[in-house]
């Protein structure tokens, strides 16, 4: 065997051929940030058009392409890969493993993503335009009435599904087989736990999504009628299959965020996480329940009363384990020696806003009330509170929290705090008014609206521009930290942070834990 302590290769081939979990994590994070900016640019076009009633900037067809691509890119291109990047960087360092279990597959699961999204974005230039049927691509809009570019969309979904499945298998294999001696399951940091459960969800439901798009492909090109009533199929079947994937998918997005918050809040409260075991069980309970609530997205399709009741009660049940988590985070902070650095600010922002999103989710779970809310801006407000203030805020907190560890350089704390406050205020100006216009009946995915919604929509648009601009500040802060940030040499950058990654030098060497660490009696969480 050669030299075990070699550094990275030089130049472009380092990134093309790398099997190092830190390199691959970095690539995932940069790729997802690029997608975040692209999806964000599409959101800016949407909000610019909605700034005033009437049609100003874009054609209605193009507006629909923007809402579709914004959703697809944010869910599959920005949020999911960003958490995979975080998992790549952190899981081996948190469980005392030298790398991921399958480093070559790791390289492959990253490198098939950029072509998939290039293909998806290229549909904008195709005849008939990009997919315009919404990110949920309900049949027959996505089959009978779809633009020709839908075939490229289907292929892109197939590729990113394969990427997700490979990534998840890798994470499960790493956590199950490569923990350092003494790192029992119930000593693992909560971030590792939430990712382990998330990975199982992904392995179970990404193939279902692949099945749904395969059926679309066959309906469009091979004369089958899975979703066509004329040939004996049923468009409602599409919704059942999609949401059987789609509901676990929303927990795939939010569970790693729960893990991040469960690492950061104890660090800045200088107390161990309250109720570690109950956090693990609550995560598992949420994952289980996510499989039996899918039809709450489709209360209005004409389900029998018994079905509506079952899905309503099952959905409300999810509030119990989620409530356990929120309770535990708040109790962790209770009487802690708290300080409010940027990661903690974003975590508290997450806690407050995610809880609001959870409550609107409970409102939506009430089947008879949902007939009023269905497909209105109330739903848009709800899922942006959980996706942006939930997943994206926690991701931002994670970057501020671990960036000094990864790079050995500190970001600008003042700029970080400004970023938080501008984000927090911009986000709420954008999405809080959408609750009101939604309750008043403004439908989603429509480029024009009735005059009485004008003021709230203008507020929303201004908030969106503020929130969007604040992300450029974030980008600048990160780049400035990497290139010229103040050097940090402490292993434990945050004095309250616990876990194996904080026993490594800052920045950690290219290869870490080639000899497994000894796990002391310290609680890992």
């Amino acid at each position, binding site marked *: 065997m050669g030299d075990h302590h070699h550094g990275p290769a030089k130049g472009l081939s380092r990134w093309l051929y790398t099997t190092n979990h830190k390199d691959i994590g970095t690539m995932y994070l940069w790729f997802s940030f690029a997608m975040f900016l692209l999806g964000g640019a599409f959101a800016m076009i949407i909000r610019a058009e909605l700034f005033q009633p009437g049609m100003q900037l874009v054609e209605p067809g193009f507006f629909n392409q923007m809402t579709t691509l914004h959703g697809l890119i944010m869910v599959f291109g920005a949020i999911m890969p960003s958490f995979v990047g975080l998992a790549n960087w952190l899981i081996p360092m948190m469980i005392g493993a030298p790398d991921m279990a399958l480093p070559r597959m790791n390289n492959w699961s990253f490198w098939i993503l950029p072509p998939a999204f290039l293909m998806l974005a290229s549909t904008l230039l195709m005849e008939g335009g990009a997919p315009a049927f919404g990110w949920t691509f309900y049949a027959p809009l996505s089959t009978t009435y779809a633009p020709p570019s839908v075939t490229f969309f289907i292929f892109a979904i197939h590729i990113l599904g394969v990427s997700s499945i490979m990534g998840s298998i890798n994470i499960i294999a790493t956590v199950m*087989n490569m923990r350092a001696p003494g790192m029992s399951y119930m000593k693992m940091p909560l971030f590792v736990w939430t990712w382990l459960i998330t990975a199982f969800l992904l392995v179970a*439901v990404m193939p279902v999504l692949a099945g749904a798009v395969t059926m679309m492909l066959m309906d469009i090109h091979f*004369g089958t009628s899975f979703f066509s009533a004329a040939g004996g199929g049923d468009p409602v079947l599409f919704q059942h299959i999609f949401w059987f994937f789609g509901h676990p998918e929303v927990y795939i997005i939010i569970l790693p965020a729960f893990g991040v918050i469960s690492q950061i809040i104890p660090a800045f409260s200088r107390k161990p996480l309250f109720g570690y075991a109950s956090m693990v069980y609550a995560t598992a309970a949420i994952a289980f329940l996510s499989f039996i609530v899918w039809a709450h997205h489709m209360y209005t399709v004409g389900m029998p009363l018994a079905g509506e009741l079952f899905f309503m009660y099952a959905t409300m049940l999810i509030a119990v384990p989620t409530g356990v988590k929120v309770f535990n985070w708040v109790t962790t902070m209770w009487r802690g020696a708290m300080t409010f650095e940027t990661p903690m600010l974003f975590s508290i922002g997450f806690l407050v806003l995610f809880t609001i999103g959870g409550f609107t989710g409970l409102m939506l779970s009430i089947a008879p009330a949902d007939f009023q809310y269905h497909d209105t801006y109330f739903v848009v407000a709800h899922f942006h509170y959980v996706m942006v203030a939930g997943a994206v805020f926690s991701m931002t907190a994670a970057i501020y929290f671990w960036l000094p560890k990864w790079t050995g350089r500190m970001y600008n704390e003042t700029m970080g705090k400004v970023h938080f406050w501008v984000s927090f205020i911009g986000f709420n100006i954008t999405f809080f008014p959408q609750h009101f216009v939604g309750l008043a009946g403004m439908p989603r995915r429509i480029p024009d609206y009735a005059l009485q919604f004008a003021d709230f929509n203008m507020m929303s648009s201004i908030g969106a521009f503020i929130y969007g601009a604040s992300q450029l500040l974030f980008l600048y802060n990160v780049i400035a930290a990497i290139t010229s940030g103040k050097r940090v040499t402490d292993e434990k950058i945050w004095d309250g942070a616990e876990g194996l990654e904080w026993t490594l030098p800052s920045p950690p060497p290219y290869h870490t834990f080639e000899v497994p660490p000894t796990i002391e009696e310290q609680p890992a969480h």
Partner: protein
Amino acid sequence: MRLSQDPTIDTVAKLGAVSVAMFAFVFVVMVPLYNVLCDALGINGKTSSEAYISVVSEVDETRSIKVQFIATNNDGMPWAFAPDVTEMVVHPGAANDTVFYAANPTTASMIAQAIPSVSPSRAAEFFHKTECFCFEQQPLDGESEAQMPLQFIVDQDLPADIKTITLSYTLFDVTSLMRDKVASR
């Protein structure tokens, strides 16, 4: 069960099998199960797609059920399509006959498929069709018309609170779908 000596390969093989199984699950479990459940429970107002074999039964003269007929063309379907009568009053257990009228105003011969739906959906399993044009595809030459027969029985076990049943047909143009199937043979 261990699939390999190497624990990593063992984990990967098992998880790979799970993902392949979940992909197959969509096709071999979810789709048939959905159709079976809809048929069995009458969800979506789906009626049976096969002729009902009538059993000899008493006609319940004490109850009268109003049966309404609706005919709709799917998007882009150029045919004229209408029920002969829009409403009938029938007794549970009795066999009733009616016809639907269809005309193809175009010059090309076309094939149509009618898809039924019953409202309220709870009534679907009590609405039996012994003969229906919806069981088969309907070919029609250009500029010609046809009377399409329907024979049905309302079950005596129809819940007492249901006084009116609406039977709706949507007519789909399946000409190109059928041509593709023939061409691919």
